[in-house]
Protein backbone atom coordinates (compact mmCIF):
# COMPACT_ATOMS: atom_id res chain seq x y z
CA UNK A 1 0.00 0.00 0.00
CA UNK A 2 1.20 3.55 -0.77
CA UNK A 3 2.72 5.16 2.33
CA UNK A 4 2.67 8.91 2.78
CA UNK A 5 6.22 9.04 4.12
CA UNK A 6 6.54 12.76 3.63
CA UNK A 7 9.01 15.19 5.15
CA UNK A 8 7.46 14.82 8.59
CA UNK A 9 10.04 12.07 9.17
CA UNK A 10 12.84 14.55 8.62
CA UNK A 11 14.19 14.25 12.18
CA UNK A 12 15.47 10.73 11.52
CA UNK A 13 17.35 11.82 8.42
CA UNK A 14 21.13 11.98 8.56
CA UNK A 15 21.59 14.20 5.50
CA UNK A 16 19.19 16.91 4.37
CA UNK A 17 19.65 18.97 1.23
CA UNK A 18 17.37 21.99 1.65
CA UNK A 19 15.63 24.03 -1.02
CA UNK A 20 18.15 26.85 -0.92
CA UNK A 21 21.17 24.84 -2.10
CA UNK A 22 22.33 23.16 -5.31
CA UNK A 23 24.40 20.01 -5.10
CA UNK A 24 26.63 18.86 -7.95
CA UNK A 25 28.77 15.74 -8.30
CA UNK A 26 29.01 12.25 -6.82
CA UNK A 27 27.08 12.23 -3.56
CA UNK A 28 27.90 9.01 -1.73
CA UNK A 29 26.08 9.26 1.57
CA UNK A 30 25.38 6.91 4.45
CA UNK A 31 22.04 6.42 6.12
CA UNK A 32 18.88 8.29 5.28
CA UNK A 33 18.87 11.29 2.93
CA UNK A 34 16.28 13.99 2.23
CA UNK A 35 16.58 16.08 -0.92
CA UNK A 36 14.41 19.18 -1.15
CA UNK A 37 16.77 21.17 -3.40
CA UNK A 38 18.53 20.55 -6.72
CA UNK A 39 21.00 17.75 -7.34
CA UNK A 40 22.99 17.00 -10.49
CA UNK A 41 25.32 14.00 -10.79
CA UNK A 42 24.89 10.71 -8.94
CA UNK A 43 23.37 9.84 -5.59
CA UNK A 44 24.00 6.68 -3.60
CA UNK A 45 23.34 5.56 -0.05
CA UNK A 46 22.66 2.35 1.82
CA UNK A 47 19.62 3.93 3.50
CA UNK A 48 16.34 5.59 2.58
CA UNK A 49 16.09 8.48 0.10
CA UNK A 50 13.27 10.98 0.30
CA UNK A 51 12.88 13.26 -2.72
CA UNK A 52 10.67 16.22 -1.78
CA UNK A 53 7.97 17.78 -3.91
CA UNK A 54 10.07 20.79 -4.98
CA UNK A 55 13.26 18.78 -5.56
CA UNK A 56 14.80 18.56 -9.01
CA UNK A 57 17.17 15.64 -9.44
CA UNK A 58 19.20 15.01 -12.57
CA UNK A 59 21.07 11.95 -11.37
CA UNK A 60 21.10 8.19 -11.14
CA UNK A 61 19.95 7.11 -7.69
CA UNK A 62 21.11 3.97 -5.87
CA UNK A 63 19.69 3.37 -2.41
CA UNK A 64 18.00 0.95 -0.05
CA UNK A 65 14.53 2.42 -0.49
CA UNK A 66 12.97 5.66 -1.70
CA UNK A 67 9.99 7.95 -1.47
CA UNK A 68 9.70 10.18 -4.53
CA UNK A 69 7.41 13.20 -4.72
CA UNK A 70 9.57 15.51 -6.87
CA UNK A 71 11.20 15.46 -10.29
CA UNK A 72 13.84 12.86 -11.12
CA UNK A 73 15.66 12.58 -14.45
CA UNK A 74 17.78 9.43 -14.15
CA UNK A 75 17.64 5.77 -13.29
CA UNK A 76 16.56 4.63 -9.83
CA UNK A 77 17.98 1.36 -8.45
CA UNK A 78 16.84 0.20 -5.03
CA UNK A 79 17.47 -2.96 -3.04
CA UNK A 80 14.11 -2.60 -1.31
CA UNK A 81 10.95 -0.61 -1.99
CA UNK A 82 9.94 2.56 -3.80
CA UNK A 83 6.94 4.76 -3.01
CA UNK A 84 5.95 7.23 -5.72
CA UNK A 85 3.65 10.12 -4.80
CA UNK A 86 1.14 11.76 -7.13
CA UNK A 87 3.36 14.84 -7.53
CA UNK A 88 6.35 12.77 -8.74
CA UNK A 89 7.73 13.10 -12.25
CA UNK A 90 10.26 10.37 -13.05
CA UNK A 91 12.06 10.17 -16.38
CA UNK A 92 14.20 7.05 -16.14
CA UNK A 93 14.20 3.36 -15.35
CA UNK A 94 13.18 2.03 -11.96
CA UNK A 95 14.49 -1.17 -10.38
CA UNK A 96 13.17 -2.14 -6.96
CA UNK A 97 11.95 -5.05 -4.92
CA UNK A 98 8.47 -3.60 -4.49
CA UNK A 99 6.60 -0.53 -5.69
CA UNK A 100 3.70 1.58 -4.48
CA UNK A 101 2.34 4.25 -6.77
CA UNK A 102 -0.13 7.00 -6.06
CA UNK A 103 -2.55 7.91 -8.82
CA UNK A 104 -1.52 11.00 -10.77
CA UNK A 105 2.25 10.58 -10.88
CA UNK A 106 4.23 10.70 -14.15
CA UNK A 107 6.70 7.91 -15.03
CA UNK A 108 8.51 7.63 -18.32
CA UNK A 109 10.83 4.61 -18.28
CA UNK A 110 11.12 0.87 -17.74
CA UNK A 111 10.06 -0.59 -14.42
CA UNK A 112 11.60 -3.74 -13.00
CA UNK A 113 10.07 -5.06 -9.80
CA UNK A 114 11.57 -8.09 -8.08
CA UNK A 115 12.74 -10.42 -10.85
CA UNK A 116 10.17 -9.11 -13.35
CA UNK A 117 11.24 -6.68 -16.05
CA UNK A 118 8.51 -4.81 -17.83
CA UNK A 119 8.76 -3.84 -21.46
CA UNK A 120 5.40 -2.14 -21.07
CA UNK A 121 5.61 -0.12 -17.91
CA UNK A 122 2.07 1.21 -18.19
CA UNK A 123 0.69 -2.34 -17.98
CA UNK A 124 2.64 -3.19 -14.83
CA UNK A 125 1.71 0.10 -13.29
CA UNK A 126 -1.94 -0.50 -14.03
CA UNK A 127 -1.72 -3.96 -12.44
CA UNK A 128 -0.05 -2.53 -9.34
CA UNK A 129 -2.67 0.18 -9.00
CA UNK A 130 -5.50 -2.32 -9.39
CA UNK A 131 -3.82 -4.62 -6.84
CA UNK A 132 -3.55 -1.77 -4.39
CA UNK A 133 -7.20 -0.94 -4.84
CA UNK A 134 -8.03 -4.65 -4.28
CA UNK A 135 -9.61 -5.05 -7.72
Amino acid at each position, binding site marked *: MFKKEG*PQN*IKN*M*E*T*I*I*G*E*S*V*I*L*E*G*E*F*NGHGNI*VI*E*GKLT*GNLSTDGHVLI*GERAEITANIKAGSAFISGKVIGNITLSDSIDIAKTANIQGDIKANSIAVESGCQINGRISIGSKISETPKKILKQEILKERGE
Partner: protein
Amino acid sequence: MYLYIYDSCLKDKKYENLLTKIEARIIDLDMKGEVLRMNLLKNISQFLKDGIKKGAHTVIVIGDDKTFSTVLESAMLENIVMGYIPIDKKSKFAQIFGIPYGDLACAIIGGRIVEKIDIGKINNKFFLGSVLIENSHNTELKIDEFKVRVGRGNKIIIKNIDFEEENFSISNPTDGLFEIFIEKTGGFMSKNSKHTLIKTNEVMVTSKDSSIPLVFDDVQTINTPAQISTAKEKLNIIVGSNRKF
Protein backbone atom coordinates in the same frame (compact mmCIF):
# COMPACT_ATOMS: atom_id res chain seq x y z
CA MET B 1 50.65 21.34 39.37
CA TYR B 2 47.89 23.37 37.75
CA LEU B 3 48.11 26.43 35.53
CA TYR B 4 45.25 28.91 35.83
CA ILE B 5 44.35 31.41 33.12
CA TYR B 6 42.00 34.17 34.27
CA ASP B 7 39.93 36.15 31.78
CA SER B 8 40.72 39.87 31.88
CA CYS B 9 37.08 40.61 32.80
CA LEU B 10 37.65 39.04 36.24
CA LYS B 11 39.25 42.32 37.31
CA ASP B 12 35.74 43.75 37.31
CA LYS B 13 34.25 44.24 40.80
CA LYS B 14 31.14 42.25 39.95
CA TYR B 15 33.24 39.07 39.81
CA GLU B 16 35.06 39.73 43.12
CA ASN B 17 32.85 37.50 45.27
CA LEU B 18 32.74 34.72 42.69
CA LEU B 19 36.51 34.73 42.25
CA THR B 20 37.06 34.68 46.03
CA LYS B 21 34.81 31.60 46.29
CA ILE B 22 36.61 29.88 43.40
CA GLU B 23 40.07 30.56 44.87
CA ALA B 24 38.97 29.37 48.32
CA ARG B 25 37.66 26.12 46.83
CA ILE B 26 40.89 25.63 44.86
CA ILE B 27 42.86 25.90 48.12
CA ASP B 28 40.41 23.51 49.90
CA LEU B 29 40.93 20.92 47.19
CA ASP B 30 44.69 21.43 47.21
CA MET B 31 44.76 22.35 43.53
CA LYS B 32 47.21 25.20 43.80
CA GLY B 33 49.20 26.43 40.83
CA GLU B 34 50.44 29.39 38.87
CA VAL B 35 48.13 32.12 37.59
CA LEU B 36 48.16 34.11 34.35
CA ARG B 37 45.76 37.06 34.12
CA MET B 38 45.02 37.53 30.44
CA ASN B 39 45.79 40.76 28.66
CA LEU B 40 47.13 41.65 25.25
CA LEU B 41 50.74 41.68 26.43
CA LYS B 42 50.75 38.24 28.08
CA ASN B 43 51.84 35.28 26.01
CA ILE B 44 49.66 32.25 26.80
CA SER B 45 51.90 29.79 24.90
CA GLN B 46 55.01 30.88 26.79
CA PHE B 47 53.15 30.62 30.12
CA LEU B 48 52.09 27.05 29.26
CA LYS B 49 55.58 26.08 28.04
CA ASP B 50 57.21 27.40 31.23
CA GLY B 51 54.56 25.72 33.39
CA ILE B 52 54.98 22.34 31.69
CA LYS B 53 58.76 22.56 32.28
CA LYS B 54 57.97 23.00 35.99
CA GLY B 55 55.74 19.90 35.94
CA ALA B 56 52.30 21.32 35.20
CA HIS B 57 49.83 18.76 33.81
CA THR B 58 46.60 20.76 33.49
CA VAL B 59 45.57 24.24 32.40
CA ILE B 60 42.35 25.59 33.91
CA VAL B 61 40.53 28.40 32.13
CA ILE B 62 38.46 30.69 34.35
CA GLY B 63 36.23 32.72 32.05
CA ASP B 64 33.60 32.23 29.38
CA ASP B 65 33.47 30.23 26.13
CA LYS B 66 35.44 32.93 24.29
CA THR B 67 38.21 32.73 26.90
CA PHE B 68 38.26 28.96 26.54
CA SER B 69 38.55 29.21 22.74
CA THR B 70 41.36 31.76 23.03
CA VAL B 71 43.42 29.43 25.24
CA LEU B 72 42.56 26.34 23.14
CA GLU B 73 45.11 27.05 20.37
CA SER B 74 48.06 27.17 22.79
CA ALA B 75 46.79 24.22 24.86
CA MET B 76 46.54 22.06 21.73
CA LEU B 77 50.05 22.98 20.61
CA GLU B 78 51.42 22.11 24.07
CA ASN B 79 49.27 18.96 24.33
CA ILE B 80 48.14 19.72 27.88
CA VAL B 81 44.89 18.64 29.60
CA MET B 82 42.31 21.46 29.79
CA GLY B 83 39.83 22.23 32.54
CA TYR B 84 37.14 24.90 32.64
CA ILE B 85 35.63 26.99 35.41
CA PRO B 86 32.79 28.92 33.72
CA ILE B 87 31.78 32.36 34.98
CA ASP B 88 28.91 32.53 32.50
CA LYS B 89 25.81 30.59 33.54
CA LYS B 90 24.82 30.21 29.86
CA SER B 91 28.14 28.70 28.75
CA LYS B 92 27.48 26.14 25.99
CA PHE B 93 30.83 24.42 26.42
CA ALA B 94 30.21 24.01 30.18
CA GLN B 95 26.82 22.43 29.49
CA ILE B 96 28.36 20.03 26.99
CA PHE B 97 31.22 19.12 29.34
CA GLY B 98 28.88 18.78 32.33
CA ILE B 99 30.63 21.48 34.36
CA PRO B 100 28.62 23.64 36.79
CA TYR B 101 29.00 27.40 37.18
CA GLY B 102 31.67 29.07 39.31
CA ASP B 103 33.16 27.46 42.43
CA LEU B 104 31.05 24.30 41.96
CA ALA B 105 33.22 23.50 38.94
CA CYS B 106 36.28 23.02 41.19
CA ALA B 107 35.03 19.65 42.45
CA ILE B 108 34.67 18.44 38.84
CA ILE B 109 38.24 19.57 38.07
CA GLY B 110 39.43 17.71 41.19
CA GLY B 111 37.52 14.58 40.10
CA ARG B 112 39.59 14.61 36.90
CA ILE B 113 37.55 12.55 34.46
CA VAL B 114 39.42 13.21 31.20
CA GLU B 115 37.75 12.66 27.81
CA LYS B 116 39.33 12.95 24.37
CA ILE B 117 37.15 15.02 22.02
CA ASP B 118 37.27 16.18 18.40
CA ILE B 119 38.84 19.48 17.50
CA GLY B 120 38.37 21.33 14.25
CA LYS B 121 41.04 22.97 12.15
CA ILE B 122 40.45 25.97 9.93
CA ASN B 123 43.48 26.89 7.84
CA ASN B 124 45.73 25.34 10.54
CA LYS B 125 44.06 27.16 13.44
CA PHE B 126 42.16 25.11 16.01
CA PHE B 127 38.52 25.61 16.96
CA LEU B 128 36.20 23.76 19.30
CA GLY B 129 32.64 24.94 18.72
CA SER B 130 31.67 26.15 15.28
CA VAL B 131 32.50 28.20 12.20
CA LEU B 132 29.91 30.74 11.10
CA ILE B 133 29.30 32.35 7.73
CA GLU B 134 26.63 34.88 8.63
CA ASN B 135 25.62 35.78 5.11
CA SER B 136 26.62 33.54 2.24
CA HIS B 137 27.53 35.24 -1.01
CA ASN B 138 27.77 32.75 -3.87
CA THR B 139 29.58 30.41 -1.54
CA GLU B 140 30.71 26.95 -2.60
CA LEU B 141 31.42 24.03 -0.28
CA LYS B 142 33.58 21.26 -1.75
CA ILE B 143 33.05 17.99 0.10
CA ASP B 144 34.50 14.70 -1.16
CA GLU B 145 33.38 14.33 -4.79
CA PHE B 146 30.62 16.92 -4.75
CA LYS B 147 30.01 20.65 -4.48
CA VAL B 148 27.27 22.43 -2.60
CA ARG B 149 26.44 25.82 -4.07
CA VAL B 150 24.84 28.25 -1.66
CA GLY B 151 23.38 31.50 -2.97
CA ARG B 152 22.90 34.79 -1.14
CA GLY B 153 20.77 35.06 1.98
CA ASN B 154 21.83 31.86 3.70
CA LYS B 155 23.58 31.31 7.02
CA ILE B 156 26.15 28.49 7.10
CA ILE B 157 27.25 26.98 10.41
CA ILE B 158 29.89 24.26 10.53
CA LYS B 159 29.55 22.65 13.95
CA ASN B 160 32.15 20.56 15.73
CA ILE B 161 30.33 20.57 19.03
CA ASP B 162 27.16 22.37 19.92
CA PHE B 163 24.21 21.95 22.21
CA GLU B 164 20.74 23.30 21.55
CA GLU B 165 18.64 23.25 24.68
CA GLU B 166 15.43 23.86 22.74
CA ASN B 167 15.79 20.70 20.67
CA PHE B 168 17.86 18.73 23.20
CA SER B 169 20.20 17.99 20.33
CA ILE B 170 23.97 17.84 20.42
CA SER B 171 26.61 17.69 17.72
CA ASN B 172 28.56 14.67 18.88
CA PRO B 173 32.16 15.69 19.75
CA THR B 174 33.54 12.16 19.50
CA ASP B 175 32.27 10.98 16.08
CA GLY B 176 35.09 12.57 14.04
CA LEU B 177 32.56 14.51 11.96
CA PHE B 178 31.28 18.06 11.52
CA GLU B 179 27.68 18.97 10.96
CA ILE B 180 27.18 21.57 8.25
CA PHE B 181 23.91 23.48 8.67
CA ILE B 182 22.66 25.83 5.97
CA GLU B 183 19.53 27.85 6.58
CA LYS B 184 17.81 30.64 4.71
CA THR B 185 17.90 33.91 6.61
CA GLY B 186 15.92 36.33 4.48
CA GLY B 187 12.76 36.50 2.43
CA PHE B 188 9.16 35.63 3.21
CA MET B 189 9.71 31.93 2.44
CA SER B 190 12.61 31.51 4.87
CA LYS B 191 10.50 30.26 7.80
CA ASN B 192 9.01 27.42 5.76
CA SER B 193 12.23 26.57 3.96
CA LYS B 194 13.96 23.43 5.21
CA HIS B 195 17.55 23.67 6.37
CA THR B 196 20.41 21.65 4.91
CA LEU B 197 22.37 19.21 7.05
CA ILE B 198 25.48 17.38 5.84
CA LYS B 199 27.98 15.44 7.96
CA THR B 200 31.60 15.30 6.88
CA ASN B 201 35.15 15.48 8.21
CA GLU B 202 36.54 17.88 5.62
CA VAL B 203 35.21 20.81 3.63
CA MET B 204 36.72 23.52 1.46
CA VAL B 205 34.86 26.83 1.56
CA THR B 206 35.27 29.24 -1.35
CA SER B 207 33.40 32.27 -2.55
CA LYS B 208 32.99 33.13 -6.21
CA ASP B 209 32.64 36.90 -6.26
CA SER B 210 34.63 38.19 -3.29
CA SER B 211 36.25 36.94 -0.12
CA ILE B 212 33.78 36.44 2.74
CA PRO B 213 34.52 36.20 6.49
CA LEU B 214 34.27 32.98 8.51
CA VAL B 215 34.01 33.54 12.27
CA PHE B 216 35.12 30.61 14.39
CA ASP B 217 34.20 30.12 18.06
CA ASP B 218 32.86 33.73 18.06
CA VAL B 219 36.45 34.85 18.58
CA GLN B 220 38.53 34.92 15.40
CA THR B 221 37.87 35.58 11.73
CA ILE B 222 39.38 34.07 8.60
CA ASN B 223 38.44 34.95 5.04
CA THR B 224 37.69 32.50 2.24
CA PRO B 225 39.16 30.31 0.87
CA ALA B 226 39.21 28.18 4.01
CA GLN B 227 40.01 24.51 4.50
CA ILE B 228 38.10 23.07 7.46
CA SER B 229 38.80 19.59 8.76
CA THR B 230 38.72 17.44 11.85
CA ALA B 231 42.16 17.63 13.45
CA LYS B 232 44.19 14.47 13.96
CA GLU B 233 44.92 15.72 17.46
CA LYS B 234 42.24 15.35 20.16
CA LEU B 235 41.53 17.71 23.03
CA ASN B 236 41.98 16.19 26.49
CA ILE B 237 39.29 17.86 28.55
CA ILE B 238 38.11 17.37 32.15
CA VAL B 239 34.39 16.60 32.16
CA GLY B 240 31.64 16.03 34.70
CA SER B 241 29.27 13.11 34.99
CA ASN B 242 26.47 15.31 33.54
CA ARG B 243 28.27 15.75 30.23
CA LYS B 244 26.10 15.64 27.11
CA PHE B 245 28.05 13.00 25.21
